């Protein structure tokens, strides 16, 4: 019985070992509707203990699941039954900030918002800001290659990770990446760890790149009239705001109304919104950009009047709470994360509307419009046959439009069957080979990311 080996952990880890109901309940969930039943929650105190813990797990063939803020949305950090959760939330120290090199070194448990606060006095910021940035951790951001509104200008987490210390599932310690601003020494192995969802190794230290804080940041809300072709709008805004536009986001009317009922409104009631952030060297330049954006939004018509949102960070926090607002009203549902080339966004939105109509399931939508990345929320029991149809049609619609089944949330357990459809069988075989070398006993976060051998290739309805 796995439980019998738990006492032997005492000699492996000096940190806390918990198996009480509250600890197991808390560690058994993420922000999705999924839950697992772990055996214990362990808090190693240093890298030596992480390595020892991996050795222990290999000896006893017990799964280990690394966990930061537990804010994943597709079950990435939900432990499989009988596994041991490796709690890294206490590794929350910003170890060093080097303003000259524009780099910070952090533990994997540092909360994204906490990093922003730590580097702000140096005139710097960390660009990836997921919707959950007040509670997600940098380690979790690395595990899922997370993005956020400002990724429109700055790119996802992968672009901002410079170094990683990691203990692989085979017990080897590696320092990946370089302190140099660039290098050309073979493929960058660091990129294999980013987005690997804790299946290859446990990250113990992260060096992140930082960007200079713009002198002026301005949040703007544009009301979106009914009938607007949102993809076309995003392209127009992108052209008009090339100089300093750092985010183009969207929240539909139903989601905006849910935010209002949560007490976290974006703007006046009754509208869908495009949310923009403009960066500029001074307020006058920001004003000029806002005017150019408003004019481009409705060419040939009186320009839309953008509503300034005083605090851009607060605007992004509220935008990030769209999912929470729908959690409150709808509970568990199909919550997707697809992306297509920006020029095909309207085709994707048309397909989503058809799926909603065909299946008689209400659709709520928000997302990163400027990147063709949207989060359709279908109000349907996620374990129902209708949900399976809705999910499959949504993911296949994205793939048919040269898109992806996951823009920024990751694969977790929910989307494993679609990995091979997107990457192809040869690429999946390569991934499996990497996994086999890094984690020969398959102890790290099993049941995630990699498709089950027979799971892929099912027939499906057309989107």
């Amino acid at each position: 019985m796995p439980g019998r080996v738990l006492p032997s952990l005492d000699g492996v880890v000096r940190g806390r070992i918990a198996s009480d109901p509250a600890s197991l309940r808390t560690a058994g969930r993420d922000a999705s509707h999924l839950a697992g039943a772990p055996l214990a929650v362990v808090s190693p105190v240093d890298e030596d203990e992480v390595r020892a813990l991996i050795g222990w797990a290999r000896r006893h063939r017990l799964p280990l699941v690394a966990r930061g803020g537990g804010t994943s949305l597709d079950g990435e950090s939900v432990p499989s039954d009988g596994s041991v959760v490796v709690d890294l939330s206490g590794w929350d120290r910003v170890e060093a900030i080097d303003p000259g090199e524009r780099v910070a070194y952090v533990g994997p448990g540092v909360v994204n918002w906490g990093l922003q606060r730590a580097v702000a006095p140096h005139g710097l910021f960390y660009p990836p800001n997921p919707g959950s940035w007040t509670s997600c951790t940098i380690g979790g951001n690395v595990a899922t290659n997370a993005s956020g509104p400002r990724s429109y200008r700055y790119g996802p987490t992968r672009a901002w990770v410079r170094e990683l210390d990691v203990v692989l599932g085979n017990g080897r310690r590696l320092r990946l990446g370089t302190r140099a601003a660039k290098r050309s020494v073979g493929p960058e192995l660091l990129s294999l760890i980013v987005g690997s969802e804790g299946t290859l190794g446990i990250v113990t230290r992260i060096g992140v790149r930082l960007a200079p804080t713009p002198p002026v940041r301005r949040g703007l809300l544009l009301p979106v009239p009914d009938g607007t072709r949102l993809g076309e709008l995003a392209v127009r805004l992108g052209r008009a705001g090339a100089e300093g536009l750092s985010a183009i986001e969207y929240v539909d009317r139903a989601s905006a109304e849910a935010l209002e009922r949560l007490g976290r409104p974006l703007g006046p009631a009754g509208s869908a919104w495009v949310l923009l952030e403009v960066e500029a060297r001074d307020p006058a330049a920001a004003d000029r950009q806002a005017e150019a954006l408003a004019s481009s939004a409705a060419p040939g018509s009186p320009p839309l009047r953008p509503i300034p949102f005083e605090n851009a960070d607060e605007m992004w926090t509220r935008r990030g709470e769209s999912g929470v607002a729908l959690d409150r009203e709808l509970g568990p549902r199909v919550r997707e994360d697809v992306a297509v080339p920006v020029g095909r966004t309207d085709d994707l939105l048309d397909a989503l509307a058809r799926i909603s109509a065909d299946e008689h399931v209400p659709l709520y939508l928000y997302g990163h419009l400027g990147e063709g990345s949207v989060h359709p929320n279908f109000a349907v029991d996620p374990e129902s046959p209708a949900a399976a149809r809705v999910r499959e049609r949504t993911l296949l619609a994205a793939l048919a439009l040269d898109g992806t089944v996951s823009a920024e949330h990751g694969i977790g357990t929910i989307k494993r069957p679609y990995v091979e459809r997107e990457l192809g069988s040869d690429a999946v075989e390569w991934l499996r080979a990497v996994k086999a070398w890094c984690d020969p006993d398959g102890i790290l976060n099993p049941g995630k990311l990699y498709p089950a051998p027979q799971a892929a290739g099912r027939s499906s309805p057309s989107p």
Partner: protein
Amino acid sequence: MTTRSPAPPASDRSSGADAPPAILVGANDDHRRLIRGLMMMHHQPIAAEAPSLGEVPAGTETEKARMLVFMAPSEGDAWSEELRSTLASHPGLRTLVLLPMDAPATRSSAARAGARAVLSRPFTSRDFLEALDRISPAASAKEGPPRAAAPRRAPRE
């Protein structure tokens, strides 16, 4: 096209997550933002939020609250008497007090005021969520490890 879908009728909406609603009180905007984010991401409904106990808005939502997360101010000790008085008039509010630093006397004050759990900074997100779980009225009804959340009835157009 627009992607707007009509909001479901109010009668079809679920009123919230499984956890009973909580009131969040704290004077520091940044700290409150972090705690609010943690609670929201982990399906803990927030009925009301205020910088101090005296500023909690009255209303139906507030009356539904069964839990209080109270962030004690870093200066002064008047808060403990205010908390005691609040909990005396609302004995059903299960309270977690977050202290700015660990001090035995302050912990004792919080406990005497009626707090069921006390956490001192620095604490991790895990510490906080476990403490929240321990004071939740729903926790006593739970047995052992979690099960997947039961889906609520989906609203239909």
